[in-house]
């Protein structure tokens, strides 16, 4: 089994967050999706990220503030799961509640096992 990194973009759900009931309902969907992955032993880890950030660039290690991009382009969180193939990983990602929002997107990347 391989590991896949899901990067979540967009779908910050600001409108949903305004209603506690709706927000709770939305969070229950994350519970269900991640819970099922957990039950199947495919869940490795996941965390949401804040909208702030720093960037360090190049050999001069220039520090700049924030990703400064549009909300829908910014990585808002990640999840790592186990799957046999990209096909399976894509199938898994389709259950992600972020896709309830039209600007929500999941980027799927296979974790590269670097052979020395």
């Amino acid at each position: 089994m391989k590991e896949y990194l899901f990067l979540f973009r967009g779908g910050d759900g600001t409108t949903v967050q305004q209603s506690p009931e709706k927000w709770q309902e939305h969070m229950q969907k994350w519970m269900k999706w991640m819970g099922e992955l957990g039950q199947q032993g495919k869940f490795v880890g996941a965390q949401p990220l804040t909208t702030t950030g720093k960037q360090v660039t190049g050999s001069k290690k220039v520090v700049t503030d924030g990703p400064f991009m549009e909300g829908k382009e910014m990585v808002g969180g990640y999840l790592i799961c186990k799957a046999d193939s990209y096909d399976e990983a894509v199938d898994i990602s389709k259950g992600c509640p972020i896709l309830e929002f039209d600007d929500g997107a999941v980027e799927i990347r296979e974790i590269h096992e670097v052979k020395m």
Partner: protein
Amino acid sequence: MSSAEPVHQLADHLFRNESKKMVAVLTRIFGMENLETAEDVVQDTILQALNVWKLKGVPENPSAWLFRVAKNKAIDIIRRNKHSVQYNFTDGEKILLTSEYTLVTAMENFWRDELIKDDMLRMMFACCHPGISVENQITLILKTLCGFSTTEIAKAFITSEDTVSKRIYRAKEFFRNNDIKLVIPSPGDLKSRVDTVLNTIYLLFNEGYNSTSSKSLVRSDIMEEAMTLCKLLTENEYTCLPEVFALMALICFHTSRNESRLTTEGEMILLQSQDRTKWNRGLIQIGNDYMNKAAFGNVITAYHLEAAIAFEHCIAPSFEQTNWEMILRHYEWLCKISPSPITELNKVVAVMQVGGAKAALEQLETIKDRKKLESWYLYYSLLGEIHSKLDDVIKAKEYFHKAIEMTRSETEKKMLKGKIMVLQ
């Protein structure tokens, strides 16, 4: 609320009740091997409640307040120990506690009302693990599932707090070393595990009913806790076995007589002198309902028979009008399925009522393990009783004095001295 006193009064009862629930839920979250963490969270929560409530008054829904604080403290611990190996959140829905996406909701889900009873039941099975000595089981149950403090347990058993702490420590060590899971035992093990739990509840109840080591003879708080624990077993679809209902019936019947067993000065009143109008008819009826439920299936356990005996006493209009023949038959059966010198001795009491003192003495002499009874005051008390009925005052006195030496209970000593007085 202005003064601290009412907060304390309310707190005592509330804290005892809520802390056992909180410990059960938190132990499910952190694992039996981290019982200590669960207890620390509860302790901190209660301290916080005392401090805040003293200043701001008791909140409208104090249990919800306590639960919320406990949840937040548990979340803090999880966040602080994200990379520690102490807590294992790999299985089941616990894995959701490792992600900020789900931590708060997952934590919330653990506290659902309908789950708490099962949490307590699982905890009960863990505390009554056959690998833990019965003494330590009872101590642990009082601490975790009954919400007693170490001081209260020490007081109840007239032992030092140090001893109580050691017992609890040993049990916790057992949990740490043996990876005990919080589960309702699988069908194959269920019966024997339920037996162990019932035995512990039975002993716990007896400790309350006839406190061997406490100054007061009856500890109704302990009896109540035993009843609550047994009730939990009756309410679960897997553990509601006939013997569970039978023990529950037994507990109800015995508890129904509480009001009549002691004088206002705390002295013991014997069955023949008890005011039967004080017996709790409602509780006897409830016991009777449990008795009916205990009758399904084809199991007759010692609890069934003991409950049947207690029932006969409960429905008898007076000591003389008790159906002693029936009681004797139950005792004969009981001696067959659960032979013990103590049961034999109880049978002798029934024999005395049915066949007289001479028959009782003969019966007594047939008890095989009589030696074992010789450290028990009731043995001498009964011998005294028999000899007083046979008009052998000298021997009767001798035996009653011996009985006084054997008991540690002040109320029992008084009762025995009363019997000697009557002999003159």
